[in-house]
């Protein structure tokens, strides 16, 4: 099947084509969806290997459900966000159960005296600080903040992903941001937020 034809099809159409045996559709879905899921998992987990595992597992579940997909009931991307964010949440819970230091013996948080004056280093330090702070939020706040502010999903779609109402999502995001501010309060200078 021509690639330009494939690229114009919706996720749902491609999934139906894949379920019917079209390998081109599987390639198109992989190229379209896997990078987004990988980005979400990377930002929630902050660990490349774990993010790859989550991405592969979420996509595998998509392949398996393809023949049973009921058109019009949900968006493929929303379903996939839900699966991936749940997988990430499970891993975050497991990390907390064994302790952050044990799960990441080499440390994922930036060193307190890490240089952050240059832009590139500062961006890296800020990203790492945010990731560490997110990991200390309650899981649902972490998921809502990541989907909203790092993946750019609108609140109604986040509500679909998380199986919540829009108001509950707004509340999670507001509380999450307050939590982040509290966690990062003592690191403002280090992160370049000078008085």
């Amino acid at each position, binding site marked *: 099947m021509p690639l330009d034809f494939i690229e114009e099809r919706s996720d749902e159409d491609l999934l139906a084509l894949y379920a019917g045996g079209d390998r081109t559709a599987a390639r198109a879905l992989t190229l379209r969806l896997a990078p987004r899921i990988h980005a979400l998992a990377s930002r929630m987990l902050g660990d490349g290997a774990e993010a*790859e595992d989550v991405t592969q597992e979420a996509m595998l579940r998509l392949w398996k459900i393809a023949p049973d997909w009921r058109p019009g009931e949900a968006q493929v991307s929303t379903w996939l966000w839900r699966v991936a964010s749940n997988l990430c949440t499970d891993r975050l819970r497991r990390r907390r159960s064994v302790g952050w230091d044990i799960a990441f013996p080499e440390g994922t948080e930036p060193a307190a005296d890490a240089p952050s004056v240059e832009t590139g280093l500062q961006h890296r330090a800020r990203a790492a600080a945010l990731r560490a702070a997110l990991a200390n939020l309650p899981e649902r706040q972490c998921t809502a903040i990541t989907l909203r502010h790092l993946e750019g999903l609108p609140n109604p779609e986040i509500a679909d992903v998380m199986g919540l109402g829009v108001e509950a999502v707004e509340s999670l995001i507001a509380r999450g941001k307050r939590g982040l501010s509290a966690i990062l309060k003592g690191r403002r200078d280090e992160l370049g937020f000078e008085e």
Partner: protein
Amino acid sequence: MNTRNKTTGTEPDAPQDVELDALFVAARQQGAAPSTALMGRILADAYDVAEAREIDPGDAPAPSLPARGRIRRALAALGGWPAVATLGAATLAGLWIGYAPPFAMSLPGVTGGEETTLAWAMPDISPLLTEDAAVDG
């Protein structure tokens, strides 16, 4: 940020929304692309799942089917059981016509009770059915 704090009048030592936004921007820029190996593994999973379901990918060899499945597909390609039954009957009739010797047919009453044979009217094809004829062409 100082500017933000002056305009909003919020606590100077608490990270503000603008500071969080700066962190979000930094985090968005740190996103890593998935590796080629990961994309390959995902696609391999897709093909494995498809083949496990015994579907027939368009650009790959068809997975082997159980005997009953192959027979069912072959019958469907021929037009189903009715078409196959008709084809079988026609084949048997053709064999019988081909191998039966010239026959005589009685036409009672046509010639006042005498039997008239039609054997003379039929072409003699028996030489064609002998092995010698087949070998000699």
